[in-house]
């Protein structure tokens, strides 16, 4: 380990340090830029959308991209670009919020099970096994009946399924970290378990958490499409990327643009998410970037 010349007076906090490293990673920046622009467009859609999202023109029907409609129209004659913009609002919202729900429950559940260990851990993990095996379809139908129909239900339903794997990953991380000496030091300082988990364990498990988050968001968006398609999620005329893709897939031969453009929107977002995710993980992985 070469003795690095000591840096300037002001030390760098974790996030500044991570940001400085992230800036060097061009791919991650590209991802951040793309994601940022999509979120921005989604936020200001009502003001910049070329057409009203439900303006139908039945006589027009499905037409390929044209001057009037840059990305073409769907079978109701509605502008596809507007549909994608409004769809983005919901898909991104579902993607981030549902993943946040899954993250919150999964991380705390896994951390507690991993830290406490012993019988408590066994019981908590068995509960996870049970939830894994429950028939997901019936569970969703019930949720819909009990909660009626709104987006909150959709987030809850998806969150309730996705946190299971997160809990498992977090438990593994906490179990390895728990053996580290700085955790023993924290115990000897007299810190309460909750503080130890919050201040010492979770920040050090950020790497895998981020990687898993960037994997959850795509699967959550696709799950949302599946639910809406079954009638358990978003109600027409509102729409989402997932729905647009599933409609597009039905008529792929005659109207390919109905599939390609929403597909591209979703795929580009997920690419951006993953480049950003990988960049963040490397930036936050202090050990590796120190050499």
């Amino acid at each position: 380990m070469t003795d690095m010349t000591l840096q300037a007076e002001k030390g760098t906090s974790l996030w500044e340090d991570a940001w400085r490293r992230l800036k060097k990673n061009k791919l991650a920046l590209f991802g951040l830029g793309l994601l940022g622009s999509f979120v921005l467009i989604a936020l200001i859609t009502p003001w910049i959308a070329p057409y009203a999202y439900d303006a139908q023109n039945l006589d027009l029907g499905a037409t390929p991209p044209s001057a009037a409609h840059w990305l073409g129209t769907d079978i109701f004659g509605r502008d596809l670009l507007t549909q994608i913009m409004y769809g983005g609002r919901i898909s991104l919202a579902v993607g981030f919020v549902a993943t946040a729900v899954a993250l919150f429950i999964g991380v705390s559940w896994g951390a507690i099970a991993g830290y406490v260990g012993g019988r408590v851990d066994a019981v908590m993990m068995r509960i996870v096994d049970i939830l894994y095996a429950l028939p997901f379809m019936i569970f969703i139908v019930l949720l819909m009946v009990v909660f009626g129909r709104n987006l909150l239900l959709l987030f809850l339903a998806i969150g309730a399924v996705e946190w299971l794997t997160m809990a498992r990953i977090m438990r593994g991380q906490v179990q390895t970290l728990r053996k580290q000496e700085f955790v023993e030091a924290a115990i000897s300082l007299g810190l309460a378990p909750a503080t130890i988990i919050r201040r010492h364990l979770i920040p050090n498990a950020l790497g895998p958490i981020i990687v898993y988050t960037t994997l959850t968001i795509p699967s959550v968006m696709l799950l949302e499409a599946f639910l809406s398609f079954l009638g358990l999620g978003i109600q027409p005329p509102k729409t989402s990327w997932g729905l647009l893709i599933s409609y597009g897939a039905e008529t792929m031969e005659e109207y390919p643009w109905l599939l390609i453009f929403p597909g591209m929107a979703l795929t580009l977002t997920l690419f951006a998410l993953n480049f950003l995710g990988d960049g963040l993980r490397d930036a936050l992985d202090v050990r590796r970037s120190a050499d």
Partner: protein
Amino acid sequence: MSLLSVSNLRVDFNTRNGHTIAVNDISFSVEKGQITAIIGESGSGKSVACYSLLGLLPQPPASIESGQALFEGQDLLQMSEAELRAIRGRDIAMIFQDPMTCLNPFMTIGDQLIEPLVYHKNLSEKHALARAKELLVEVGIRDPDTTINNYPHEFSGGMRQRVMIAMALINEPKLLIADEPTTALDVTIQAQILKLIAELQTKRDIGVIFISHDLAVVADIADQIIVMEKGLLVERGDREAIFTDAQHPYTQKLLAAIPSSIKEASTRAPEPLVRVEHLKTYFETPSQLVKAVDDVSFQINKGEILGLVGESGSGKSTIGRSILRLLPITEGTVTFAGTDVTALDKKGLRGMRRRMQMIFQDPYASLNPRMSVYDTLAEPLLLHGIESRKTVEQAVLTLMDDVGLARAFIRKYPHEFSGGQRQRIAIGRALATKPEFIVADEPVSALDVTIQAQILDLLLDLGNQYGLTMLFVSHDLAVVRHIADRIIVLYQGKIVEEGSSEALFTNPQQSYTKTLLHSIPGQSLLAG
């Protein structure tokens, strides 16, 4: 003509954090039938130099700028990857530092041993296995027929290092490069391995390069010694020349750092602060019941530094952690300043935590990488209400002064510090709650020799300044002799001998203590 002659070798590293020169234009030669030691602290470039010869450095960050390395007339640095590969494992072999991780855990040692033979000499497996068994016997491993099919995790650290040596010598190499082969071993095992290397070197008349950061270790076996500092070759000479009249100030500094003095018995009247009675700590493993600490009783007096010495597996760390209740105790009591610690409930224990603290061995693992120096030191102060939000910054700064850390580093993160500086932070954290009693669990064994000396002096000063009582756990007798008032020798969970450091070192009673003392490296050169 010497076996290996290296001239103006220069190796640079360009990583994301900047460009550094690891090896700066060094030249040296290694004779057949001699052990050449290369001594230098971490970051001196000693390993980089040897690895670059064999092309074991990953090229993107590292780049060999210049130099020539003639081995039996051929220049290693110009060789292609294929030619280098032919030499590696056949003519030049290597042994590494940490036996725990250097053997493939998924393959039997037999498979790993015969690989060089099968690959380089394309012997049949049957012949190769036979040859491997002979080597195992030669390096001192009993009944090779069964051990050849065992997996690495079934061997102790010392045994694994012997396997590594057998693996290196199996192809009768002409040059053996040993990169700190005994650093991770206990002192008695270290002595055996050093003896084994010396014997094999003479029997097979091969050249050996012995890389180490500790002059004492090579004192007994090195024929020629090279000292390196920050990539430069500062001194070269035979053993007597280096140890009797070293020229370069850096070499002199290294020699001075070897703890040799014995601490005189302290004069204070014994007033017990910590009393341990019939302490038993057993671990339940799936295979059998491990009696780590087996009925140990002793007391630590106020203001005293008690040394706890023993090899790995003797239970010394377990005792330290049991006293602080970091581990569940099976039986026995620990009383601290009159109160029985073992009987305290959760809340009572937390209150007691303030008065007992611990310093850990590995500076890289005992600090939370995600917290700055300020956070690490402020946490205990705020937790126990010693300081308020407003006054805590000032308290942290004074703590940093106490442990010798520049105030400017207050916002820095552990990964931005060297091993020694990190240990200072850990000590600062332990002192934050102004404890009366500190357990130091091998605080210096992971540090370089010169840094080790600084930290030991720091501990002594702080002990006197704050009237601390300390339990100093270590496997290194020389270090303990330097710092401890009284010493307890442990063997497999039981106390073998107890006494003042002066009495223990001048006339040890028990045979185990004698073998321990006898295996401290570098005794032959140093006066008593």
